[in-house]
């Protein structure tokens, strides 16, 4: 059974149809990217999965269970972690506190357990340390989150989402607004998630970045799915290229900036072996 099933989801805002009849699935352990030009409905679709947007039609299942209509908190407790496109840390809490909060959230529902002093919660503290290390945030652990730079904020978003040990991790444009020096470490961190067996659904505007990470790609344009396939099929798909034409065709050119240092073509890990460069 797929971990995530999106079935015929349609979202209308007044007259505007943001997402139309979108269906796709994500298997356990898979890394799926949703790409598409601006206004394609990527974030709206994301919000439907995370529970913060009710679809006009269609439904979403997590591990077979229908989660449409649940609140974001309920969806989160069922194991869906998410980051926000615009990083939204709790600015006045320290980096460590931000992660710790998410690391022990199963206790937050139980009044008395959560009244225990924080430093007595060893498991959450250990998980927090591990995530600080994995995301390279150890040096700024005691800083208030409001003092972080954009790259650190993105990593904090991921650490925080991972802290809840999600079954499914939703990444909403983690590379947006980052320069090459910010994207490189981020790419490493997101790439590592695969090794940890996390199922990831990535929404990305940066095509090169998404294609270099994903096992499978879903392409949205004007709210509809126009293509689904392996990254290398997507690179060559004329419909995809057309959708991006005029807007950001440069991103489909060889050697895009985001996955800097990595030649287009054979990707690390050996998947899609032997497939040539871009179309």
């Amino acid at each position, binding site marked *: 059974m797929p971990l995530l099933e999106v079935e015929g989801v349609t979202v209308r805002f007044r007259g505007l149809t943001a997402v139309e009849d979108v269906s796709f699935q994500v298997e356990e352990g898979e890394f799926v990217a949703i790409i598409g030009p601006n206004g394609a409905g990527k974030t709206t679709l994301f919000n439907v999965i995370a529970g913060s947007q009710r679809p006009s039609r269609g439904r979403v299942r997590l591990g077979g269970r229908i989660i449409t209509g649940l609140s*974001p908190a309920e969806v*989160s407790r069922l194991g869906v972690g998410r980051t926000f496109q615009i990083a939204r840390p709790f600015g006045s809490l320290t980096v460590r506190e931000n992660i710790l909060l*998410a690391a022990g*959230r199963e206790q*937050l*529902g139980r009044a008395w357990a959560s009244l225990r*002093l*924080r430093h007595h919660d060893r498991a959450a503290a250990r998980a927090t340390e591990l995530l600080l290390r994995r995301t390279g945030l150890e040096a700024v652990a005691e800083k208030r989150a409001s003092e972080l730079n954009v790259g650190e904020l993105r990593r904090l978003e991921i650490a925080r989402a991972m802290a809840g040990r999600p079954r499914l991790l939703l990444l909403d444009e983690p590379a947006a607004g980052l320069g090459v020096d910010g994207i490189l470490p981020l790419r490493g961190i997101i790439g590592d998630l695969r090794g940890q067996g996390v199922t990831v659904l990535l929404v990305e505007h940066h095509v090169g970045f998404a294609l270099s990470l994903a096992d499978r790609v879903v392409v949205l344009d004007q709210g509809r799915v126009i293509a689904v396939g392996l990254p290398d099929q997507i690179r060559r798909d004329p419909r995809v290229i057309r959708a991006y034409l005029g807007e950001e065709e440069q991103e489909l050119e060889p050697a895009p900036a985001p996955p800097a240092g990595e030649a287009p073509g054979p990707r690390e890990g050996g998947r899609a072996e032997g497939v040539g460069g871009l179309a």
Partner: protein
Amino acid sequence: MLLANLVEGMTIGSLYALMALGLSLVYGILRVLDIANAGAYTLGAYVGVLTWRLTSSWWLALLAGAAVASGLGWLLQRHLYVPILASGPIVPLIASIGVFTALEEAYRLLFGPYILKLPARIPLPTVRIAGTVVSGVQLLVLMVAVAAFAGIALLLDRTRTGLAWRATAQDRETAEAMGIDVGAVTGRIFLLGYALAAAAGVLVAIHYNAVSPTMGDMPAYKMLAIIVLGGLGSPFGTVAASLLIGLVETFVAAYVGFLLPRDAIAFAALILILLLRPQGLFARGVAAR
């Protein structure tokens, strides 16, 4: 004289702080100025009187007052404030004024417009420090206040619940996305906020030996000014501002009290300070403590 005023000023300030802390926590979590919190103060005092008449126990009076008011707070947030929260901050504010007025009238109908007495005996000795007498009641107020402040500081700073409260106060939506049950957080904050106000009500009733339906009038306005002075939503600032106002009004009343009544002095001081520091003394958020 100086020391006596200091002790009385701290006592009054501590009572203000208990009340204002509740208001400040509620403001921090819902961004609603909850006038009805002062109704919980009066409710606490009445429940305290009734409990004391039945049991002659000051601490049962304190406990019962806090418990009943907690219940009121929980009901109000659940069935009034949260449902109308989406209509902007003014609607809940007006609703809370309505609730406050209705509560006052309810007290008047139930208990009459008279002053009831609460002559509880406090089993604390009268202490003499450097020639100044500190009464048992003053000691009790100071002890309850210190315990409450320490407890809240520990809760906010050192527990996961406190972390979740601070996070929710800062960004409700993100807190929710992270799996925090913001409804439960809001409920617990009202339980605590109303219990604090009611505890202050019972202590005031014992301190002045008087309970009346309108005893919440002056605190309702004064607490608003105090939490603004304390930097809206900052618990530390709220306590500091409360103590400051308690001290200022006690000292000024003692030395030039023949000119103005006590409450007028307090408000004059508040206006003066806010003119100089419109952002309050400690302008940070609840989450920023």
